[in-house]
């Protein structure tokens, strides 16, 4: 398993996964479940070390969104590559709730979906292959242009054409 952040393999995950029945260490970066957060919000809120949370993909992210900025890492899951709910969760967290921390894809993460994930706001990926960095690099070069605006800042074809027409008009 490789953990890829911003295109580079990270040797070790800074976040320690804490099972729901284990004690959360007082310090150090930890990753907890949404269920635990729901149950122990008060105790965990005051914690001074980085906190990560993994959200189930059937969670209505509108309910969680306002709390997103409290976290340094949000993990969204793809139980199967064909289950695309986390794409919507990712875009909502980034674009609606302005989440700026690490957004990580886990589960059935395949090369051919990396393009979609990147465009939806993911910047970290758990990929079950050694050459994850190469696969990622290849996937991010899939298309020169995009047709639709997302939070990734790429300019859509429609806006590119509009800008070109305006520039042309100004020159005339």
């Amino acid at each position, binding site marked *: 398993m490789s953990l890829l952040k911003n295109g580079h393999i990270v040797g070790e995950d800074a976040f320690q996964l804490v099972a729901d029945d284990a004690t959360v260490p007082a310090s150090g970066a930890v990753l907890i479940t949404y269920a635990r957060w729901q149950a122990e919000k008060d105790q965990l809120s005051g914690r001074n070390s980085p906190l990560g949370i993994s959200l189930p993909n059937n969670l209505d992210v509108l309910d969680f969104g306002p709390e997103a900025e409290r976290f340094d890492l949000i993990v969204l899951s793809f139980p199967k590559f064909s289950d695309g709910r986390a*794409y919507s969760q990712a875009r909502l967290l980034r674009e609606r709730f302005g989440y700026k921390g690490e957004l990580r894809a886990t589960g059935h993460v395949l090369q051919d979906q990396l393009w979609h994930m990147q465009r939806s706001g993911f910047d970290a990926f758990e990929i079950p292959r050694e050459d994850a960095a190469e696969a990622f690099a290849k996937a991010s070069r899939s298309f020169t242009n995009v047709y*639709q605006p997302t939070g990734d800042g790429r300019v859509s074809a429609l806006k590119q054409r509009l800008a070109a027409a305006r520039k042309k008009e100004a020159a005339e």
Partner: protein
Amino acid sequence: MYQYDEIDQTMVDERVAQFRDQVARRLTGEISEDEFKPLRLQNGLYLQLHAYMLRIAIPYGTLSSHQLRGLAQIGCKYDRGWGHFTTRQNLQYNWIKLEDTADALADLAKIQMHAIQTSGNCIRNTTTDQFAGAAHDEIEDPRVWCEIIRQWSTFHPEFSFLPRKFKIAVTGSPNDRAAVRVHDIGLRMHKNAAGEVGFEVIVGGGLGRTPFIGKTIRDFLPKQDLLSYLEAILRVYNQFGRRDNIYKARIKILVHELGIDTVREKVEAEWQATKDGALKLPQEAIDQIAAQFAPPPYEKLQGGINADYANAFRTDFEFGLWARRNTFKHKQPGYSIVTISLKKEGEAPGDAKAEQMNAVADIADRYSFGEIRVTHEQNLVLPHVRQADLPAVFKALKAYDLATPNVGLASDIIACPGLDYCALANARSIPVAQQIALRFKNWERAHDVGELKIKISGCINACGHHHVGHIGILGVDKAGEEFYQLTLGGSADDQAAIGDLIGPSLNATDTVDAIDTLVETYLRIRKDSDERFLDTYRRVGLAPFKEAVYVAA
């Protein structure tokens, strides 16, 4: 017509390269068939009974003569010299080899075409009125909006792994020829009280095993908000649509289970948060696309009936028959819209030989500004023909067996490929269609019967739209034998309805006889020759038809 710019061309070229790489990785075993399947499906490649089938997108059914010639050539190079036009205004090749597919897609890219998202759980090719831009009754050309939707939906990062496939149809005319009420989203252009043109948004229609007529989620949507509203619907569907059972995964089930009011609440809430964002369409951007659908350089002709045309109509009986059935009123004085029937008796509905495609391309160049349309009823259209040229067009089409005068008649049947090709089918569709068509070969009888839409599906997935046939025929498997269920009174137009089941299923021979009986019953009980089969059915209901079919049997 819309022409690719560098951005569009780069996009399809890169897609071909990507698919070539995916095929290579599949062949080396780097990715499993399970992982490869959605990739090939999103490039239109299905594994059928005998071979791979490649489904080509014909965005909103519009083709140039150059593209049609290219399709004919690809049909010769990689298939057996045929193409099959489908109910989604697409084209299918039925005999493709896996190793050839990347090359076939590369050839397609050269004529500004592709197979992107013609399958898979994503937003499919947007369909529309085949007479768009030409029909006398249209408010605005819906293709402008189809193209805007095409671009927005292509490689949409959020909506490429939906619970199930997603189909959008647009009509620019109050007379719905695009079946918008039986699509996941239907868009009907209309004017509001202030005289502004916008969309009625309909959601949750569909056929398949659980047919539903779509419900109106919004009466009037301003044009500039189209994409943000679509995105809001899709986002709600992507998150809340069922994924536990593929037969319950379409948005129609979500609408049915939550109720349209709850779905509307969620969609509107989502839309309020995004409507003034990046998806809002600036008028200049709409105008840029619209400019690509500017009308062709029509001649200024007189309105009314052209003299040459009227003369031919009087003196050439065959021509008159054809002109009556296969032409439609154009918005431009002196012009007509011609429908080319791909339903000659004895042929598979929607099939066209390469030489026929080439002939249509030549005729379009000469008489219709090089433009061709594909209809969801599996015919072709020459959208802009001078009335004076109709006799010549008729003659030219006839030479290629393309002048069958049966548009809208009993032999103008929609049929899915059925058990002859499809791995999902329970029963054959094409032979039944062929036999029914033969019963109506007598033009006098067929024209006397008038408009009658017969639609045949070889299985419950309803690719032949049987639910919305005036007479619907559904193939079922009964202890290993092919049987057929009949439904009556379905309709896909502005008064859309799902047909009613008439009774127990029949074998193939009895089915063809039953169609005859239904038609005879109609002829006996109709008020007059202006009352169509569907009107009679709506007036009298199932009983007399049921009695005739089952008492006789």
